[in-house]
């Protein structure tokens, strides 16, 4: 055990993991976090607490993580490289760990031009790969990036993201390998819609023996509407939405499009359960947290195992 978090335990035990996501509010109301947490509690093994996602200012992810803990959830504390230099990052890691955080996810972060402060200086002192490595060094070697010893090193279960679809495709597996060598413990992927390409990615990762070294959680986001599918296809960078998905949603009965979206997601989850090297699913039902119980139910991942 590296960190002893619930998520780590679930994965270690060989269970099919099921994680969720929770976006902190654009305000200081802790109840908002608690409300969302209610829907997730008992339905997921761990919940990602996003860090100023889409470069919009929100409640800090470590604070929201603490509220999540209080609400009975295990947070997966996200950290992006955009807003902090290496000093701030390390001190936040220390503080979060001190208050009970056990998982963290290392990300580059959306460019500040997208958000509500396009004039901001993007820090990017270190990149996500270097963040992974820094967290691992802090945990395993008990050293800060500058080399000094840490009195009580933070023992975090270290995650990162992976996009199996971005061009050049050939390079994707190597990128995964690089993250593994940087020290990542688990990977949550980008939302998957193009199953064919994903299968190819998984195959290549298995061939290189990578999925024995890391837990891969497949990213799933159910489509709420045809409009959302089209938006994801054309507007969201790195997203690969095949036309069949859009056609399938268009073919759904009136008022049943969201249902069809959930159905697609559940079919995916069923397949992931059987796919070699897939350790679980990361469900990103952002601003749709109230549907998580139903989705989890329909995906057949309930009840969550106790470990």
């Amino acid at each position, binding site marked *: 055990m590296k960190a002893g978090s619930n998520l780590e335990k679930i994965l270690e035990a060989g269970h099919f993991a099921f994680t969720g996501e929770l976006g902190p509010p654009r305000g200081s109301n802790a109840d908002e976090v608690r409300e969302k947490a209610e829907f997730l509690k008992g339905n997921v093994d761990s919940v990602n607490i996003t860090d100023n996602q889409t470069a919009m200012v929100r409640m800090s992810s470590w604070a929201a993580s603490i509220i999540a803990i209080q609400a009975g959830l295990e947070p997966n504390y996200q950290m992006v490289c955009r807003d902090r230099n*290496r000093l701030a990052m390390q001190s936040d890691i220390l503080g979060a760990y001190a208050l009970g955080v056990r998982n963290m996810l290392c990300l580059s*972060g959306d*460019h500040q031009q997208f958000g509500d402060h396009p004039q901001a200086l993007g820090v*990017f002192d270190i990149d996500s790969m270097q963040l992974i490595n820094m967290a691992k060094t802090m945990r395993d070697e008990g050293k800060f990036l500058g080399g000094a010893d840490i009195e009580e090193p933070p023992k975090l279960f270290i995650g990162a993201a992976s996009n199996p679809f971005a061009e*050049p495709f050939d390079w994707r597996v190597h990128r995964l390998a*690089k993250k593994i060598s940087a020290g990542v413990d688990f990977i949550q992927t980008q939302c998957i819609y193009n199953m064919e390409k994903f299968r190819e990615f998984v195959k290549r990762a298995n061939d290189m023996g990578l999925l024995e070294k890391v837990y891969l959680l497949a990213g799933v986001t159910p489509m709420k509407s045809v409009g959302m599918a089209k938006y994801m296809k054309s507007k969201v960078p790195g997203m690969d939405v095949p036309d069949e998905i859009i056609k399938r949603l268009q073919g759904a009965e009136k008022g049943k499009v969201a249902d069809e979206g959930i159905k697609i997601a559940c079919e995916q989850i069923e397949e992931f359960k059987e796919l070699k090297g897939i350790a679980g699913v990361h469900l990103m039902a952002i601003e749709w947290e109230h549907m998580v119980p139903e989705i989890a139910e329909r995906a057949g991942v309930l009840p969550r195992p106790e470990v």
Partner: protein
Amino acid sequence: MIVAKRKPIDEIKDLLKDYKKVLNVGCGTCVAVCLTGGEKEVDVLCAELDMARKMDDNPVDIEGTTIERQCDREYLEALDSKVEGYEAILSMACGAGIQFLAERYPEIPVLPAVDTTFIGVNQGVGWYEERCRSCSSCVLGMTGGVCPVTMCAKGLYNGPCGGTNDGSCEIKKEQPCAWYMIYERLEKQGRLDCIINFKPAQNWENQVPRTLIQPGYEKPE
């Protein structure tokens, strides 16, 4: 080459509003080549200011001169005899030149007429692109000659972020993804191994004022 762009006339006017006698000094090197601060631009700015101030009923006595380089002491000497009697000096050189001028004439306010933009290349008449951010630790050797610091919007050292989008950067479609370019070029050269390995955190030297003494040289007493 250092690329600069001239400040808007209103901003320059505002900087100069309290001075009646101004010397406008151009620089004959980088800013001349990038069409910002050579003889021609000095003349144009003088004429513009002369006219604008007349219209404002606040005439200014402005004279223009251009020296070879404002970042070389020897060339600044030519100005020594000229600056006498001027209430302010306007410099059309890069930030380095402006500071060097200010340092030489500490009694006279030296004001910038241009914004120094970047180190870049000339793509066509009046069209320049940034190519270097003088980070002090060049990685171009492993990145196929594409600078990840300058060309990647996030300055990433270990490959692209999740926003890479069919060869474009997430900030806009027209901006190529630096890491996509790096991959393509290295793949062609058969050197993908250059970026397989983890590159540890950067030692950011450009955060402090730097001094450089070439090997075999010494700082003069």
